[in-house]
């Protein structure tokens, strides 16, 4: 057995070492050579999350429900993945607005509301009290275990270990956390000490773990192998039933949000953060720390259960009892120091965080409102602030001590801790919601927090009072015997863990009220400004968005700052401000809005945002409502302009794209036109050349014999006719395509049109001794069309067929087909056919099949182009089917009702 004085002596030495580290850290900070400006210290300080609960309680939890101690650490691991998004935003917001606690954060977000800050503080103090009591209980219990005394015996006040533990820790926190009032609330010394404590508790726990696994047993396999023989222990290696899964999920989500909502986590992760980029490394360093410290929890629990069967030793103390049982007392003492560091780290940071809150958001606003105290006129308030904070620390620790005296003995460590977790989780909707949802209102946050807190009290805190006899036990069956209101089974919801049950109801109440009331109420002007500052923390420069547009005399402001932070610090702050802005503050008489804002934020660091606003308002000429609205208008105008600009630039992009397309089309058309003109000219020149040369022959040779002269004249006439035809067709085509042609729509029988066309081309067929067959149905629908144009189409197709068929063997068939919405006319021949490659081109102008260089073209090359133009204008279409050597069939479709000229205009050009 260890001697009491050794344990006390070593503990005292350890605490002195901590103090030395803290002192050194503060000294270095004052010299400007910070020791905590590294992400490793930052990550280690966040590990203040691991308290006695982790050190002792996890083993206790693991001994009864196996892996179910883990969600408490898996949740923070999951949240760590999102730190870069969530925590970084919190840090950014807090630095911009000089926020120093959760109460400040929430009150700032919702219009610097004093009421809200006070409410958050009350919830934090009441909710965290069990958590602090947990640490006290752990330290005193383990102290007794180390001395071999029976745990749980609480004698008078002066023989109770936890009383002395509480006393010494309160003194410690006061020395650490409230040495002076600091406008930024950085406690570098404290952070250094906390990081050191994180290292100590990690090494201590891992040392016990290694001892148990490889010292007592022969590695993991041996330990677990022995454990498997006991069915009760073997059950610890499973997760359990569906209800257990439910608890698992809820506890994971709970611990996920509390890692950013617990006051002490906010303190180390946000307030004490010196560099935003430290968060990056912490994202993986912190989960790594959690993995390592949890690795041996289950092995120690299993080994403890095997070594102490029958419940002779409380599982919460296995970490100490196992080395003691094997006479490794030095290791036990080291483990005790590890547990002590876990507890002290938590209590120090938690009480400092709570004291800041109580002072800035609860006591100061009240004192400032009591006009008869004349606080405004006091010259030095910083001593008052310090006194309030120190008093708060003593009060909070003492409350925790009371809780452990009255209630704590009947609960396991983890159960007590989870009660506090559930309370801290109530901050999550207002806090996280406020960072991402601009529309959340002050009334919504107030309603949500109140509802959540009341339900938490009713379903967790009060029943714990009742169970320990502080309230009548009948409370547990529901007040006045109403079964539906049973605190542990509200509205008949049974079968869940108490914490899970409470969380479900309180979160429904909290979130529900928060969202509903926010949606139904309006924001005030300052709420709107603050909401924008928080939600758009990463967007651009926010200096313009400030509430104050009033002004004050510099003398008043200086007096105010001196009163709260002391003359020396105030002077330094103003000098820095002057240097940054290039003005001499002392020489000014009237302070502008910028300086007023600066003072407000300076004060906010010392006394909280809400109080700072009240103080500044007392000396600054208040901005009028109209002026506030102007600020808002300016801001919203800028936003509107930028949105307009964005829209404009998008429209411009689209328009540019359209123009580019149109330009491409124009260029293509231009190219086609050039081609057309050059082809037409070429086509015109051929007959002209022929006419000219024969005329010249006739002119130069008057003695030419009459027969030949006759022949030459025939050629001239024929070429002139061809020329005329060509010019007519070009004009025709141009007229059709330009849309200037007259369309004379009448009702006709397509069979008549075909017969007339066949009659008109009859001479051609006779000339080449070809056969023309008409395959017309007995009945055909009438169509409304331009008769002459339609006939022109048929004639063109027929003469086309004649041209390409061999004389004497040619056969041409015209077929008419009645369709549902029009008629189809097909002209088939048995000529040489059209190669596939040419089929798509033959409807273009001047495209003829065959080699124009060797075979003399027989037509103008415009016939098919005209057909297509006409049919397009009439709303029809034309196509060709052909295979080389098997003739060609041209088919065109004509609708029952030809389209009007106007509609045809809208169709894309041909």
């Amino acid at each position, binding site marked *: 057995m260890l001697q009491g004085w050794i344990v006390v002596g070593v503990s005292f030495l350890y605490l002195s070492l901590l103090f030395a580290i803290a002192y050194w850290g503060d000294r270095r900070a004052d010299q400007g050579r910070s020791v905590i400006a590294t992400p490793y210290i930052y990550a280690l300080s966040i590990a203040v999350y691991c308290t006695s609960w982790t050190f002792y309680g996890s083993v206790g939890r693991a001994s009864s429900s196996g*892996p179910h101690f883990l969600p408490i650490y898996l949740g923070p691991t999951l949240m760590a993945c999102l730190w870069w998004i969530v925590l970084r935003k919190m840090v950014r917001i807090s630095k911009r607005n000089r926020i120093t606690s959760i109460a400040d954060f929430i009150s700032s977000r919702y219009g610097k509301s004093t009421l809200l800050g006070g409410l958050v503080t009350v919830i934090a103090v009441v909710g965290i009290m069990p958590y602090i009591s947990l640490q006290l209980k752990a330290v005193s219990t383990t102290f007794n275990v180390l001395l071999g005394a029976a745990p749980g015996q609480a004698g008078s006040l002066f023989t109770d270990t936890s009383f002395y533990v509480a006393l010494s820790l309160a003194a410690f926190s006061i020395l650490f956390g409230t040495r002076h009032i600091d406008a930024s609330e*950085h406690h570098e010394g404290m952070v250094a000490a906390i990081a050191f404590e994180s290292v100590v508790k990690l090494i201590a726990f891992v040392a016990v773990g290694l001892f148990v696994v490889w010292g007592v047993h022969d590695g993991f396999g041996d330990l677990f*192998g022995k454990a498997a023989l006991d069915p009760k222990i073997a059950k610890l290696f499973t997760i359990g039933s569906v209800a257990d899964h439910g608890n698992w999920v809820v506890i994971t989500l709970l611990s996920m949000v509390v890692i950013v909502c617990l006051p002490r986590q906010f303190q180390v992760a946000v307030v004490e953060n010196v560099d935003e980029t430290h968060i990056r490394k912490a994202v993986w360093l912190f989960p790594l720390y959690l993995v390592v410290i949890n690795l041996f929890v289950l092995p120690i629990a299993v080994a403890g259960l095997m070594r102490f069967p029958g419940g002779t030793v409380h599982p919460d103390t296995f970490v100490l009892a196992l080395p003691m049982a094997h006479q490794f007392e030095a290791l036990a003492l080291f483990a005790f120091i590890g547990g002590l560091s876990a507890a002290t780290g938590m209590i120090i940071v938690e009480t400092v965080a709570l004291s800041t809150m109580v002072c800035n958001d609860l006591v100061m606003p009240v004192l400032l409102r009591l006009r008869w105290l004349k606080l405004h006129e006091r010259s030095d308030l910083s001593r008052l602030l310090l006194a309030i904070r120190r008093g708060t620390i003593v009060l909070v620790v003492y409350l925790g001590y009371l809780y452990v005296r009255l209630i704590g003995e009947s609960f396991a460590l983890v159960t007590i801790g989870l009660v506090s977790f559930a309370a801290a989780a109530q901050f999550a909707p207002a806090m996280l919601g406020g960072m991402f949802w601009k529309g959340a209102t002050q009334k919504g946050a107030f309603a949500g927090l109140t509802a959540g807190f009341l339900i938490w009290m009713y379903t967790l805190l009060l029943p714990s009072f009742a169970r320990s006899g502080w309230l009548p036990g009948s409370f547990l069956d529901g007040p006045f015997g109403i079964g539906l209101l049973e605190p542990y089974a509200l509205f008949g919801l049974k079968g869940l863990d108490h914490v899970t049950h409470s969380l479900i109801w309180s979160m429904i109440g909290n979130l529900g009220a928060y969202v509903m009331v926010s949606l139904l109420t309006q924001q005030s002007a300052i709420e709107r400004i603050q909401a924008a500052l928080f939600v758009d923390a990463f967007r651009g420069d926010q200096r313009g968005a400030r509430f104050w547009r009033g002004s004050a005399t510099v003398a008043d402001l200086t007096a105010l700052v001196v009163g709260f932070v002391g003359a020396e610090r105030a002077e330094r702050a103003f000098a820095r401000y002057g240097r940054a802005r290039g003005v001499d503050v002392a020489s000014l008489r009237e302070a502008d809005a910028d300086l007023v804002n600066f003072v407000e934020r300076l004060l906010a660091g010392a006394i909280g945002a809400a109080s700072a606003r009240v103080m500044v308002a007392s000396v600054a000429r208040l901005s009028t409502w109209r002026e506030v609205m102007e600020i808002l208008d300016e801001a919203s105008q800028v936003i509107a302009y930028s949105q307009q600009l964005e829209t404009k630039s998008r429209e411009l992009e689209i328009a540019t794209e359209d123009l580019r397309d149109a330009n491409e089309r124009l260029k293509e058309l231009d190219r086609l036109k050039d081609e057309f003109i050059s082809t037409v000219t070429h086509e015109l020149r051929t007959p002209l050349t022929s006419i000219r040369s024969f005329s010249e022959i006739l002119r130069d040779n008057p003695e030419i014999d009459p027969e030949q002269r006759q022949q030459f004249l025939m050629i001239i006439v024929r070429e002139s006719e061809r020329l005329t035809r060509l010019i007519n067709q070009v004009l025709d085509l141009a007229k059709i395509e330009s849309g200037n042609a007259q369309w004379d729509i009448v009702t006709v029988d397509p069979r008549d049109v075909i017969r007339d066309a066949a009659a008109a081309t009859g001479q051609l067929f006779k000339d080449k001794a070809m056969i023309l067959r008409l395959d017309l149905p007995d009945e055909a629908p009438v169509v409304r069309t331009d008769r002459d144009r339609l006939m022109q189409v048929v004639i063109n197709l027929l003469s086309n067929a004649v041209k390409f068929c061999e004389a004497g063997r040619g056969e041409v068939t015209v077929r008419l087909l009645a369709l549902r919405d029009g008629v189809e006319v097909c002209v088939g021949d048995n000529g040489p056919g059209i190669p596939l490659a040419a089929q798509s081109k033959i409807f273009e102008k001047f495209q003829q099949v065959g080699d124009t260089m060797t075979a003399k073209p027989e037509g103008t090359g415009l016939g098919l182009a005209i057909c297509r133009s006409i049919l397009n204008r009439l709303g029809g279409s034309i196509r060709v089917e052909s295979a080389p050597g098997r003739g060609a069939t041209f088919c065109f479709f004509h609708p029952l009702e030809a389209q009007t000229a106007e509609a045809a205009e809208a169709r894309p050009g041909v």
Partner: protein
Amino acid sequence: MARPPHAHRGLRMASPSGLTERLGAAFLLGLVLFMPPLLAVFGQGGWLAGIPVAFLYLFGAWIALTLVLALIIERAPPDPAPLPPDEPAER
């Protein structure tokens, strides 16, 4: 996972590092690993090389996730936009 430095050149894209997206994905991975469907599969009991499967799985998954986080963080380029100097910090 390396990709060319300017894979996207949109007008208003997310931060060039893609850090936020990757961490978001890691978060989802964590949810899948530590939440019931998979948890139920590995939480039924059973032994592997003398060590309980639940213990192996939970810590294996946990270490793997931590490793993924470390990879994401350490391979990302430095923060493009640290906090602009607002006003000198108070001491």
